[in-house]
């Protein structure tokens, strides 16, 4: 039986032209509302017994915007990769226009009209937008008719309202424009199904608005748009038609967007379970050690990422900032660590203004920083464990005299903290590059915490760690609290923030939505706030 869809897949490189003709034929007479993609019982298990997708059914119609929601670890990425041909499902079938298909690679999916826009751009920065768009297109064979291609691409852009300077180099474009380039690239290749991974996470508000309009006009031409969303609910939901919500690898709810409220969606996403509270040690809060007033900062990309936050931390208090990455937390942490300049506002530490203090001055004051990027920022891979620990000691009189490092003392200190923080390694001369993620984080804690006297800033301290290491890190944070330190915890994991913090500040687009004492924080509400829903 020769099915057209299979035939498209079976054609190889040399017959690109033929393939694109077949693809056109395959997609002829597309009607609005027709089911274009159907997934039945998609199941994917990973080694170690994790069931990422558990019998997921999905139905996508032509011309609809069908959002797929889920928390981290809900199985969204796996599903997305299966639909795009990056992963093969263990069970289940995928049908496109009623024809069963099996993707051997993303190329098969692309040829069948599935386009994907990743969260991390996959463009060539030194090439122009146009060159990136036509790269890999069947029509762009050995000789490229640039003018004709430009005309076609320009028409596509106009049709869907994408404003791109096609002759600009990609590195000159903003994150939002780069995303547009990726979308146009997919459309130019004839995508009828467009998978978008967390599409608005990098956009500015104005870009978001324009982007949403483009989505609508794409849906108007029978293209099915499938945005996958973790946290930034409000924008995309405002234009979507239907929503499928995943939790722990299963579909928990399908509904039409106009019948849903944000709170209800958040509830489906995170589940109903009551807060699981770990034993938070009762510590009397002492005097105020950190006071941040109207602090703002500009991101590496040049826009205002932190837009005036005000808060204070007292001794023995864990102040938890809950939010999706990219909402200004990184900038806040870096400003507090002294490696990024504040563009406005004040930072007071024990009553002293330290807004312009250097990182070294802050370290000497006893402010510790656990950065989110462990390999790039938190440690030096080619340094030994001892040298990594020395990074927090070299400036201290206790460990260096007359410009010479006292390696005997450093070694003693290193041996002590490495056993105290249970870093598993053959010895202190082992290089940090040999440590696993959890062990590396233990090393960074061993480096930082014993040198921290007053204030600890922990930026995504458990991200990517396994259960054991996560537990270890959380307990260490609580130990610091018992010792009377003030702790600023930045986390994407809402449960973690709720579990260990005394005060919770959901952050969205560079601002605190609210500052709530832990006793009064309810998961659904904080979760909704993280995604931009206002406090009542």
């Amino acid at each position: 039986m020769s099915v057209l869809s299979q035939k498209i897949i079976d054609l190889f490189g040399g017959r690109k032209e033929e393939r694109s003709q077949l693809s056109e034929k395959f997609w002829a007479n597309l009607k609005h509302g027709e089911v274009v993609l159907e997934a039945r019982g998609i199941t994917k298990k990973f080694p170690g017994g994790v069931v990422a997708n558990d019998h997921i059914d999905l139905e996508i119609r032509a011309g609809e915007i069908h959002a797929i929601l889920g928390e981290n670890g809900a199985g969204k990425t796996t599903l997305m990769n299966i639909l795009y041909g990056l992963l093969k499902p263990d069970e289940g079938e995928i049908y496109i226009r009623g024809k069963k298909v099996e993707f051997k690679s993303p190329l098969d999916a692309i040829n069948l009209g599935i386009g994907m826009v990743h969260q991390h751009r996959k463009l060539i920065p030194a090439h122009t937008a146009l060159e990136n768009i036509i790269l890999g297109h069947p029509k762009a064979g050995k000789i490229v008719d640039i003018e004709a291609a430009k005309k076609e691409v320009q028409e596509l852009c106009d049709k869907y309202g994408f404003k791109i300077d096609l002759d600009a180099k990609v590195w000159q474009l903003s994150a939002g424009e780069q995303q547009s380039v990726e979308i146009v690239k997919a459309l130019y290749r004839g995508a009828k199904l467009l998978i978008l991974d967390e599409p608005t996470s990098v956009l500015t508000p104005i870009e978001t608005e324009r982007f949403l309009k483009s989505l609508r006009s794409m849906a108007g031409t029978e293209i099915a748009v499938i945005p996958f969303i973790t946290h930034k609910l409000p924008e995309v939901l405002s234009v979507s038609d239907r929503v499928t919500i995943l939790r722990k690898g299963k579909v928990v709810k399908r509904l039409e967007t106009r019948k849903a409220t944000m709170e209800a969606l958040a509830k489906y996403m995170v589940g109903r379970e009551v807060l699981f509270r770990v034993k938070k040690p009762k510590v009397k809060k002492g005097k105020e050690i950190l006071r941040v007033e109207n602090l703002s900062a500009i991101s590496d990309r040049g826009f205002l990422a932190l837009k005036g936050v005000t808060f204070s931390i007292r001794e023995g208090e864990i102040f938890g900032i809950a939010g999706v990455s990219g909402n200004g937390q990184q900038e806040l942490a870096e400003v507090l660590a002294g490696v990024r300049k504040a563009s406005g506002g004040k930072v007071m530490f024990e009553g002293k203004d330290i807004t312009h203090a250097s990182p070294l001055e802050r370290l000497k004051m006893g402010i510790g920083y656990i950065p989110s990027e462990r390999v790039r920022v938190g440690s030096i891979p080619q340094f030994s464990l001892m040298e990594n620990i020395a990074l927090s000691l070299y400036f201290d009189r206790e460990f260096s005299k007359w410009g010479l490092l006292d390696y005997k003392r450093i070694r003693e200190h290193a041996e002590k903290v490495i056993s105290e923080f249970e870093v598993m390694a053959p010895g202190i001369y082992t290089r940090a590059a040999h440590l696993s993620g959890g062990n590396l984080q233990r090393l960074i804690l061993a480096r930082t915490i014993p040198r921290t006297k007053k204030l600890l800033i922990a930026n995504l301290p458990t991200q990517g760690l396994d259960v054991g290491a996560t537990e270890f890190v959380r307990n260490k944070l609580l130990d610091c609290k018992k010792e009377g330190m003030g702790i600023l915890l930045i986390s994407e994991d809402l449960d973690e923030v709720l579990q260990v913090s005394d005060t919770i500040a959901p952050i969205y687009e560079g601002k605190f939505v609210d500052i709530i004492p832990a006793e009064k924080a309810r998961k659904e509400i904080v979760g909704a706030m993280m995604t931009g829903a206002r406090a009542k």
Partner: protein
Amino acid sequence: MKLPKLKLERVLVVTGRDAVKISVLSIIIAFVVFSAFILFEGANPIDVYKCVFSYAFDPKTGLPTMIHRSTLLLFATLAFILPLKAGLWNVGMEGQLYLGTVGAFAVAYAYGDLPSTILIPLMLISAGIFGAVYGAFAGFLRGKFGVNEIVITLMLNNIAFWLLHALIMPPTGPWRGIAESQSRPLPVSAWAPTIWRLPFTVVLAPAISILLFFLFEKTRIGFQIKALGSSQPAAEHAGINPAKIAIFVMAVGGAIAGLSAYHMWAGDPSFRLIPRPDAYKGIGELTYWGIMVGLICLLNPLAAIPLSIFVGSLREGGTVIVRRYGLTYGLDRVFLGILFLSFIALQFFYRYKIVRKKKA
């Protein structure tokens, strides 16, 4: 016989022993490849290599010059190593050498009456300071404004060349000499005291090697330099100021290159003046070999001592084989080129290793 299947594997960390193996292997490969060139030219490679080294190490012929030039090379290498430990590429040893020349000669011409014991230290200090300022300028631009230091130091080399040119060239050069296109000779009191036909600066360079080794291994600033060179973000977060370190390493590197000016012109009996521009340019270009020596010795200032002698002897001996065996002119430089290429090619093994594929 079935060939074992090979595959590439990423290497996370290169151990010291692996690194030494890579360096030694690159030297061996260079010898083998160059042998092909010699054979092509119709000579016996073994004889040629023997000749190279027997000339370079024969006290009656090449040895004094070889040691003198190797010392210059060592100065240049050290001036290159120190900044690169902090992640900065100093390719301005040539310009720093010229600036050191200006510094040393200015003192010598102005205070030529002073006794040697005062004049020579003054010349050294002045040469060092001139080189340091020239280096620090590039370090400052890099540290404060993020300007690429390779571009800056290279351009500064040209400026320094023409500065020296303007100083010695008739009719207006203030330092012009009697002979065409050379400077006035140095006063006798400025000549470097010699031990067995060699200037005392031959000891100065290895002494700096040892000091640098000590700096890297024991001192706080050395630790900061290594941290910055290994990971700028991690170093910055640990309170290390990249701009300060950049200025420091470039200043000290420049000073070392500046010192070599005294060694070069006041130490070699055949100079004791600033020679014609093409001659001093030739010496200036010798400093670029410091880059190669520095990279092959893996930025180890102690390993730089024997390696400088090795490369210096190849260069000295190389000039002879061209004459003696009637080889094509410039073939001696081809060898150094091959050595560099083979070293760069073997950089591959810093990232990958080839392992035998296990049967599934």
